C-alpha cells in the first residue's frame, strides 16, 4: 500500500482523471473531495462491508408462509 501524508487543501491525483482533495480536518473527521469520471462508482467502504453482512444474513431466512402472515 502506498502511504502519503497530506495537509488540508492538498490533494492526490490517480491516473490523470481522478483527484482527491483534503477539504477540511476536524478532530478525527476528514472531509474529502473527489473528482472522477461520471461512470466511476464511488462508495464508502462500509457499504460493501454491510452488504456482505446482509447477504450472509439473508441466507438464514426462515422458511415462511407470507400469505399466512398479517
Amino acid at each position, binding site marked *: 500500500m502506498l502511504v502519503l501524508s497530506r495537509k488540508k487543501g492538498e490533494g492526490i491525483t490517480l491516473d490523470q482523471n481522478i483527484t482527491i482533495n483534503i477539504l477540511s480536518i476536524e478532530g478525527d473527521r476528514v472531509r474529502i473531495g473527489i473528482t472522477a469520471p*461520471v*461512470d*466511476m*462508482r*464511488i*462508495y*464508502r467502504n462500509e*457499504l*460493501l462491508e*454491510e*452488504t*456482505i*453482512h*446482509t*447477504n*450472509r*444474513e*439473508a*441466507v438464514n*431466512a*426462515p*422458511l*415462511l*408462509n*407470507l*400469505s*399466512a*402472515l*398479517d
Partner: protein
Amino acid sequence: MIVETRFGTSETSENKIIDFPSGIPGFEELHKFIIIEAENTKPIYWLQSIENKHIALPVIVSFEIINDYNINIRENELEDIRLESKDDLLILNVVVIPEDARKMTVNLAAPVVINAKRGIGKQIIIDAAELPLRYPVYEAIRNSLKGGEKDACTLAEKG
C-alpha cells in the same frame, strides 16, 4: 437438468442459469445461480446457488413493490453484464428475513442487476442517502400481495 436447492430438488434448464463472474459479496466463490419460486413466499423469490444448495438469497423486484425506488445504473455496469437492451434488465434486491418476518428489510443500496437474456449478473453498490441498506419492507410486500405483480421467474427466462 435437476439441481439441488434449499427447497429440495428442482427442475431447471441451462438457459435459466445466471452467471455472476465476481460472485455475490459474501459469497464470492459462488458463480451460478437460478431464480426460483418457493411455495407461499411470493413476491419474494430466491436467488439460489446451484453450486451450494444451502445458499439461497431471498430477493424482491423492488420496482414493483416500492413505489419510488429509483436507481442510476452506470454505463460500465451495464457493460459488465453485457446488456444490449434495457428490456433484458432485471433488478432484484436482497431481503433479510429475521425470525419475526414482520421485521424484514431490503437492501436498496446494493441492487442485483441481471442481464436476463444472456444470464449475467452482478450486485452493485450505490452510495446515496435515499437508498438504505435495511429498509423495512414488510408492509410494502403485504400490500403488493393484494395487487398483481409480475413474475420474476418469467422475466429471467432467456429468449
